[in-house]
């Protein structure tokens, strides 16, 4: 059709306006953009997990720039052919988390655990938060698969949560991932009150023996034996634990330093950038702000706090059976959740408040890396039972 010039301009401008955010915006976009800004502020001002919160926060902003979803502009994360959608495949198909675990393996030193193997049990106890959250989710009306995916938030492990929800409840990847990473970032806020509540002054002053030196050979054997032991019993933990132990062998073998170095720097950084950005962007307001998301956040927080509870309580239970010099300071019980190294740092900080010379960091790290293994096993169990 042939239009008059002014009519044509008017029409083009109106179409152009139809493309702008102003024509498509919605209160939920604005709420989510504020959430994104809040995450970025937390990271910059409070230094909470910046490597996660900056990508996720900016991702939330990117994902909530309102655009005309009917115009096939291939911008949105849920539109096939968009860049965000391509990068999101790693989340949706669950291959970013194992790569993150590869990098974590290549940077984790398990000798704290090897030197005091009994602390490994704290990493088991803290997983109770997961199963408590599973019950609660069932009670709130979620299906067992959804409940399993939500429950894993209590494992305090972002990649594990993304991996499991991509398998069990892909419709909830967004809120589960955001919840998992938010609470991981809030470890220094959520855990100390629980720790203080459950411990007596005397318990907080318990001094633990310094760990023994772990010979190189044991550190090399650990990823191999650990791998065989865990995955023979729970093969569904293979994608995560296989990669974790593989990365650790690259580190400890002493002959593949360049591979370990790349795994724990470029590779994990690239995956972290893509994972954070797309997890953030997956929170497009119109599909994200729902009653279910709110319930998921509530369940996540509860699960997280219960995990801390059970870690600290179990430490106290262990002390009932321990001889005098071998007591465990229950302030490291919180470190059984797998937020590495944040919860270990919390143990150290809280410990120092009560005794300036009592360094709990290394002992807490033992519980902390056990938590990583424990939560990956718990994910394997849920996967086995619910598929």
């Amino acid at each position, binding site marked *: 059709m042939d239009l008059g010039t002014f009519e044509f301009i008017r029409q083009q401008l109106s179409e152009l306006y139809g493309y702008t955010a102003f024509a498509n915006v919605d209160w939920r976009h604005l709420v989510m953009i504020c959430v994104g800004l809040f995450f970025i502020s937390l990271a910059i001002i409070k230094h909470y997990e910046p490597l996660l919160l900056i990508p996720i926060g900016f991702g939330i902003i990117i994902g909530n720039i309102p655009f005309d979803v009917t115009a096939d502009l291939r911008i949105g994360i849920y539109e096939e052919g968009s860049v965000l959608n391509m990068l999101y495949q790693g989340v949706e198909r669950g291959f970013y988390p194992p790569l993150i675990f590869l990098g974590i393996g290549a940077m984790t030193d398990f000798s704290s655990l090897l030197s005091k193997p009994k602390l490994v049990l704290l990493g088991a106890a803290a997983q109770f938060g997961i199963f408590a959250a599973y019950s609660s989710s069932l*009670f709130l*009306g979620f299906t067992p698969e959804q409940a399993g995916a939500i429950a894993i938030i209590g494992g305090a492990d972002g990649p594990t949560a993304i991996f499991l929800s991509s398998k069990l409840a892909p419709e909830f990847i967004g809120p589960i991932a955001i919840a998992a990473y938010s609470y991981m970032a809030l470890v220094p806020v959520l855990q100390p009150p629980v720790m203080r509540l459950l411990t007596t002054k005397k318990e907080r002053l318990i001094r633990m023996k310094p760990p*023994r030196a772990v010979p190189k050979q044991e550190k090399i054997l650990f990823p191999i034996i650990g791998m065989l032991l865990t995955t023979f019993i729970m093969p569904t933990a293979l994608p995560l634990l296989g990669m974790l132990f593989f990365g650790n062998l690259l580190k400890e073998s002493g002959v593949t330093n360049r591979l370990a170095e790349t795994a724990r720097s470029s590779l994990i950084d690239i995956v972290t950038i893509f994972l954070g950005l797309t997890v953030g962007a997956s929170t497009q307001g119109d599909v994200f702000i729902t009653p279910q998301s709110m319930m998921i956040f509530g369940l996540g927080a509860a699960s997280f706090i219960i995990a801390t509870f059970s870690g600290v309580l179990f430490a106290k239970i262990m002390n009932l059976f321990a001889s005098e010099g071998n007591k465990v300071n229950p302030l490291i019980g919180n470190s059984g959740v797998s937020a590495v190294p944040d919860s270990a740092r919390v143990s150290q900080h809280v410990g120092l408040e009560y005794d300036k010379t009592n360094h709990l960091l290394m002992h807490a790290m033992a519980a902390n890396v056990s938590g990583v293994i424990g939560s990956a096993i718990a994910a394997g169990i849920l996967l086995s039972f*619910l598929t």
Partner: protein
Amino acid sequence: MIQNFSYMTHQVESGSAIVAGNTSVFSQNDPYGALMAILGMGIVFLILLLLFTVFSTTPRIYTPEFKVWLNSLWSRKKMAKPEETLEDIKVSKPEELSGEVNAAIAAAIHLYRSELHDYENTVLTIRKVSRTYSPWSSKIYGLRNIPKN
């Protein structure tokens, strides 16, 4: 308050027959998740207890005698690795003593750094050198860096 969100499962892929089968068993027989909690915690503890058992026994195997024997075994196989024995000797002696002190220092440094690290830049000492040309010099570099192929 008990309602069901399963209608939201808009993009679950594949294997749905199995999922449905097993899950329905669970929803009917374990409506409160109690069995899941017991079984789950049981297995987590089982696996980690096994890990504990294995790695609390290994150090007992690694007695000084065993280590010396193992080293002698290795050294025979390889050309000669005196560093190893040295290291092991160093390892098996003085760490118990200085551990506490080290921990304090280490933790202090760690905390100090973690508080400061974004107000400082880490700068690598970079030195520019003019290329002293030799057909040999570059080769060594090349050789040492070839990861294999």
